[in-house]
């Protein structure tokens, strides 16, 4: 059964429909990239998947025993976070919040946070202050937090905004590694079409209410892709 199944969904905010007829499925292990111009409803779709927004119509279903709380979400950074006095360990641990049962984090959850820091090579930064890290390191910390929250699905919202090209490439390879070696499904919203084509297995292109969904290969053959790249504004 598919991890996410989205059938003929329409979305909007403040009584204003921004996208209709969205159809896609994400199977376990997929790397699905969501592209499209600003205002095409990408962020609204992310919110709908997270359960923070109702769909107007259609059917959005999480399968495979995936619960909304168990999505590893990597939101866009806010300005307030940039000078937030928190240690790396505290931030990563807060990803375990949905699994917490008592007042404090259990030993097992602390171990999970530690393991994820190890996976992302940030264990040596454990006691460093979040605000003193570089942009790339901060993004790794937030990724480790997202991993703490999930075993199945990562949802990344414009994850490389503000990173320099070298750090961006590193970050992409990290996500790719997580996707392949840990078998975690990745949904990534991005403006970086070339990265999406290189990394992704599937593409969801949202535009003016209509949408394309298919494999990367199929997308390369589509009219939408041609228009999009020939338009010259993206890609």
């Amino acid at each position: 059964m598919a991890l996410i199944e989205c059938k003929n969904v329409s979305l909007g905010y403040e009584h204003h429909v921004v996208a209709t007829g969205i159809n896609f499925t994400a199977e376990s292990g997929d790397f699905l990239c969501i592209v499209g111009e600003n205002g095409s409803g990408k962020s609204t779709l992310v919110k709908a998947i997270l359960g923070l927004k109702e769909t107007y119509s259609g059917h959005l279903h999480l399968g495979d025993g995936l619960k909304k709380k168990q999505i590893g979400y990597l939101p866009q950074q806010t300005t307030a976070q940039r000078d937030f006095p928190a240690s790396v360990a505290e931030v990563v641990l807060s990803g375990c919040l949905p699994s917490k049962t008592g007042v404090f984090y259990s030993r097992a959850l602390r171990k999970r946070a530690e393991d994820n820091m190890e996976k992302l090579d940030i264990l040596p930064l454990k006691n460093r202050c979040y605000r003193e890290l570089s942009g790339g390191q901060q993004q790794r910390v937030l990724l480790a937090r997202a991993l703490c929250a999930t075993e199945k699905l990562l949802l990344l919202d414009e994850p490389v905004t503000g990173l320099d090209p070298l750090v961006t490439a590193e970050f992409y390879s990290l996500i790719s590694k997580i996707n392949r070696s840990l078998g975690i499904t990745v949904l990534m919203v991005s403006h970086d079409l070339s990265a999406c084509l290189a990394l992704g297995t599937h593409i969801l292109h949202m535009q003016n209410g209509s949408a394309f969904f298919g494999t990367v290969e199929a997308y390369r053959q589509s009219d939408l892709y041609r228009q999009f790249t020939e338009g010259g504004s993206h890609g």
Partner: protein
Amino acid sequence: MGELLNFFVSHSFMLRALLVGVLISLCCALLGVSLVLKRFSMIGDGLSHVGFGALAIACAANVAPLYFSIPIVVLAAFLLLAMNEKGALKGDAAIALISTGALAVGVMVTSMTTGMNVDIYNYMFGSILAMSRGDVVLSVLLSVAVIVLFCVFYEEIFAVTFDESFAKATGTRVKAYNFLIAMLTAVTIVVGMRMMGALLISSLIIFPTVTSMRVCKSFRRVVGMSVLVSVVCFVLGLVVSVKLEAPTGASVVCVNIAFLAVFALLGAVLNLPQRSKLFRFRRVLAVLLVLLLLCGAALPFFGGIDIHEAKKLSVVTTSFAPFDFARAVCGDDAEVTMLLSPGEESHTFEPTPGDLLQLEQCDVFVYGGGESDAWADDILSSLDTSKKQIVRMMDVVELQEEQSLEGMQEEEEEEEPYDEHVWTSVFNAQKITAAVCDAVCAADSDHAASFRARAADYTAQMQALDDAFFALAKKKQGQSFIVGDRFPFQYFMTRYGFSFYAAFPGCSAESDANPHTVGFLIDKAKAQQTPVIFKVDLSTGAVANTIAAASGSRVETLYSCHVISAEDFANGETYVTLMQRNLAALDA
């Protein structure tokens, strides 16, 4: 140090202030961490203004201030959050609207009812005497609630503070936590603002977190350090206010400023870049700074409280007139103190802890008993007064209700119907001098003879003045004097039969005359071709100047003797010499 401790222990109001203050500081620090880091610090400021408005309305409507303002401020907190959430108005604009709006409503309600009285002034700048037993109970309950909630939901609060979107996505009830924090903040602010002042309470929320952020690198440490800094700053501020005889709220904020400065330096030193020349010395510098902070913090505890050892009889008076009478009667045989400093405004006077200590240790206390020293009655009721001689001037003379003169700007709902400026009639001044003389004689019978001799001498000088005023009133019969100011001379006017027009009643702190009143006085001045418009001492004379300019007259000063300017005080002016000035000014 021992004396200081004793002072706190022996005064229930100081203990209450200490307890409530420590608990409120603790709550403010905990809530502040979340508010500051979420960029919501201005909520604290906005809510304190709403609190002021609510207290002003409660005061006007004569309902219990706490039970009225807590729901209002909680409601405002919810409104602010909801507006922020909906995005209908962005946070800072919404807060500015609500806070200035509430302040304006508070001032309107106040000016239409009681006038800017002592209570309202206290709400703005705080009063250490404001803490009742009910407040103690409320603040204990409140702080227990805040601490328990903070401990139980610590991880959730961290998650919500650090990243709302992520917390929401992982199923944390972000809205509920935001409302919880806003509600607790609202209650904390209402309880704390009457001690710290509406204009200063939000500093308790903001300073400790900002200070801790300079040096602490994890959330847990910021929380711990904020609580520590907040409580330490409050206790130090309270001690400093006792020592320097300064208002408590402002002292606490100043201590917070000092802490912030030292912590900022400390943060800079600890984060020195490696290539800096000072890098090698950063540990030494840090240790030096911490030592400096500790020494600075210990400083207020040394040296005891600066109170004259009472070898002589100690007489404490509130304002200038009773001070002058006591000074004349006592000569060198007693230490006479005036609580109101020369040049200080009488109607908004608020006793400092040091003043209260003097009051407690004195042998004789002379005060008015009217609106501007209403605090004295409260304090006296909590003190052991069996060994004290107390003269309440309004008990000594025949009281007159404060009358409204023709054309005077009305003040509705006067709390205290009697005019408190009883000494403006020289006859009353003689009576009060006699009463003060009786009191000091009773307190110190060894010097009774010299007390009586001096009192007789001074009342004789007053008698001459009294006769002179009667003669003047006869001469000026049918003529009206115009006072473009407050009018504290009612007893004076009635005693001698003068006729006056004036802008405001005696105790009014109102300085904004309405155009109608000013117009009336200008018409009177023109019709009578009055050569002189009077203002009252220590007033800016804005209204008198306006009238004088419009009617082509000059401005002269009348002395109420309630307060005295620093200059006149230094020159040794007395009640009699100031009243002689009045005589000359009126005779012109």
